[in-house]
């Protein structure tokens, strides 16, 4: 796997979420809940993948070199393969410039979105999110889009 695939993965997740959200009303209440649950789950990966892509870009990693061979600039693949958005944020924060949501500031972001962001973890593939709120998840997804755009603009 090379670094570009992180960016592509983030885009794939994003498009999948868009499909899910576009057809929400076609489902029953339960179906809608499931679609929202998956949207939440995938949105976290939009963040994760784009963060990873940005970190690799910003350390000037060879685009052709497999990502698991990372061992430069004080970074190892072991550190980067985490799903912990906080750890990835710290690595990205010191390297990127620009006013990037979640990384540099939380201005204008709803508290409920921040809570969802902090709550996100890959374990949600096994467990269900309680209190599924359509509006909250839409906002969470929208912010992932904005963050991705901002990051792509700034690397």
């Amino acid at each position, binding site marked *: 796997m090379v670094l*570009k695939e992180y960016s592509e993965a983030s*885009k794939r997740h*994003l*498009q999948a979420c*868009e499909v899910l959200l576009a057809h929400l009303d076609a489902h029953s209440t339960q179906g809608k809940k499931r679609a929202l649950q998956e949207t939440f789950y995938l949105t976290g990966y939009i963040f994760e993948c784009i963060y990873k892509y940005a970190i690799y*870009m*910003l*350390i*000037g*990693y060879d*685009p052709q070199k497999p990502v698991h061979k990372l061992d430069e600039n004080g970074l190892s693949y072991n550190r980067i393969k985490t799903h912990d958005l906080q750890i990835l944020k710290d690595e990205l*924060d010191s390297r*990127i*410039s*620009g*006013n*990037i949501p979640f990384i*540099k*500031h939380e*201005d204008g972001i709803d508290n409920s979105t921040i809570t969802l962001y902090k709550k996100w973890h890959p374990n949600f593939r096994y467990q269900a999110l309680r209190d599924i709120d359509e509006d909250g998840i839409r906002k969470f997804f929208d912010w992932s*889009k904005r963050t*991705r*755009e901002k990051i*792509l*603009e*700034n*690397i």
Partner: protein
Amino acid sequence: MLKALEKIRRLEKELDKKKTGQEIKDFRIKLHSNSTITVFVLYDNTKPDLQGLAGKDEKIDINWITREELEEDSYYIATFNKKEVVDLGSRRRFANLIEIADKEEIESCPIINFYSYKGGVGRSTTLAIFASYYAIKYEKKVVVIDCDLEAPGFINFYGIDYEETGKNGIVELIVNSQFTDKKPDLRQDYTIEVSKEFSGNGSIFIMPSGNLSTQLDLSDYLEALARIDLSSTTTIRKQFKEVIEHINDEFKPDIILIDNRTGFNDVFGVLGFMFSSIIVGFFGNNRQTRPGLHFFLDTLYKIKGDTSFILVNSILPNSPYSRARKFESEIENYLQQAIAEKLDSIPTFYTYGISRNPSLEDIGNPSEDPNVFKEFVNTDISRDYLELFEKMTELIDQYNQDKKEGKEEQPILPFIEKDPGEIRRIILNNLHDHFPEPYGESIKIDREFLDSNFYFRKCMEDIFNFDKFLLIGGKGTGKTVLYQALKNDLFFDSLKEKARKKDIPFDVINVISLQQEKQEFKFLEMDNLYVDSKKPQFTIFYKRFWVTYIWNAVMLEQKKTGYNSSFKVEEIKNDADTARRFLSIIDDDEKYIQVEAELNLLDNILKEQNQYLLLLFDQLDIIVKPHEWSEGIAPLVNYWRGRPFNRIFGKLFLRRDLFNKMGGLTNKELLRSQAINLEWNTEEMFAFFFKPVFHYSGEHFFQLMKYWGEIPGETIDEIRRIVQNRANFFQLPPEQKLLEPVVDTFFGKYFQSKTYPGYQARSITKKNETYSWFYLNLKNADDTISLRPFIDLIKFSVDRALKDSSLEKNVKPILPADFFISGTVRAEAVNRHFKDIASEKGNEDLKCIIEYIQGKRIPDNLRYINLYRDQLEKLLRLIIDKNPQLKNKNIDGLTKILIDSGIIREQHLTGGRKRYSFAFLYKYFLGLRG
């Protein structure tokens, strides 16, 4: 050169071709921070062959996108929504800060930022002295923040023992505030109060950069510095803002001074700019500071609008004033070259020079004697510092005033009989009906005209100075008006009176006269004398021609001189008969000697009668063709230079461009001291314009001046006294201190101009000082200013204003800037001026060149204010090829005409390159671009 950027430029060109050829729909190029490139190509059905676009070893990624994919991805949409094809992405550090977006207003006392690009230019010393000066003289509270984070040092002033105080600074304050929400105690932990010895009845508090007193403190400081995120505008801006708010909250200071040394890459200092009301930039006198100066100027024009800028040329070894003048013109040059083309006008600024002062050199050093500093501030302050400080104080007052106006209710204004809007209309209407005409060549000179419209210039009085025999001026300086007016007895007597030469009996004779009105015809083109023969090679021929001409012209005025020639005197006509008569004298020694003798005799008679005779020569370019001036006019100049008579004085009116290129004169520079310079300056220009305003609308004008309450009553009274007094010829002298209040009332003291569209995503407004704006934006390429564009600009603006319904409103000033800064009006205002220049002898080709540029027939890549030599050559070659009239002309000749007529300026760059810039005046007229 950066390889990636070079590649991008090539890619852009290639892809542009493909787009034009419809092989692709669109494209964008992005440079990433790791210097790799992504190309986004929008295509329809088939991917065109882009092989070869990316080199084998180059890190270029091509992203093929269909319309459908584009619409699905908001990042793609954002990318293609950008107008710019190339996105250089984000830089690692400060660049994003210089965006003007997200500007935040701050509730604060005035903040003055002392900036320098390099150290050792007197920045901190000047700040320390100003803080003391302001605290002592005005009894004010001053807070100084040391923002020289990389090399803190301000705490060494005022005899502070810093190691003892061990105070934290701004860096610790920012980082500590992230750790705890507790409100910091600035007085206790983060500032040092300066001894009263240095602050008198005021006070000074210093907030250091950080605590460097012990090894541990230093290590903490560096740790804190590393933790300040200099890459995010939002964060750092917020933190900086909080610091300023804390200071205002706790100290309630009168001003905050920021000490700020900032290279290209230091965000903190640049950020400081954004909150400042006044920025004072210090630049030394060597080339090293030039990049910093340019960076500073570039940055300034990207930040908020109501900031005032002062540029200081500092630590000058000697003659600060002349050096500061050079500095000023360097700035003007740069503004014109690099920035002004992005703005709608050349922005105004203030410059000062500060000289090296040995007594200040020890300040801030361990060997410092504190008394020297105190004495300097209290008693010895030198003029250069004082002038700078007074300007700063004035700007601080102005800032406070502006703020107050926005908040408080308007004071009760003095009673006036009419509505101010109505008064404005009356003033403008009167002006419209009696508009001053700079070239009133056919105007009737009577008492009314002299009292109301004619501006008596100081330089005109030099006509009675026997040492000055040349009057040199460009087109539109009023040479011909003066020449004509001198024939008028009323004008002549008035001028004598003004020059205090009333008791000296002068007579005036116009040697050259093209009109047969009231006087004899005196006009003969020199080449009539050698129509069929070869051009004479001997200087003596030309000298004899002129002596003969003078003799003939003077003898025709028998009524004036009372002298009767022994020859039969005939009119000078532009015909073969006169030519033959002239040749018969020039070629015959006997006759010529007699002519000379008659002139000498007349001179003696005048001496006996205690009379003076002035012989005026104008329109010499009609007698001798411009390209023959070196042979034909130089002998005439040399003749009068030799002072041939005791009582007869020649006065030669010469076109500046022709004088400049005339050969055949030795020691030309020395001649300039014998010349009257007819060029106008800003003061005269304003004084000229306001004479009729006062004459026709004086009382109304003073009513508004008083009513608006911005000009002190005593100044208004003084101006009124001067312009109502016949002894002053009802006009203001060319002095800024009298004219500025008048200009401020009429045009407003400041106005906002806008950036040129496309330069920034959002438009930025810049605060301009009206008084200097006119000169900066109307001057010719050779730095002279012509009256015509100024007068026409005002004339057209007044016409527009009178048609505007908002005129009746009670709004300051009389003629708001909106009317005179519009591009259309500015283009129109140059029209007549240009026609005048083009109608001059020898300038016939100008018309072809300019019309061609105006006709928009030249490619866009040549339609620039600034052109390199090869671009100018391309442009002129194109024009020559398309104009049969220019068939035999060469590029050098045309370039010279453009330069000599003040349309372009030539600049020599390093490496032997040359750059040509059009005067900003022509920007709108020619539709030039940035």
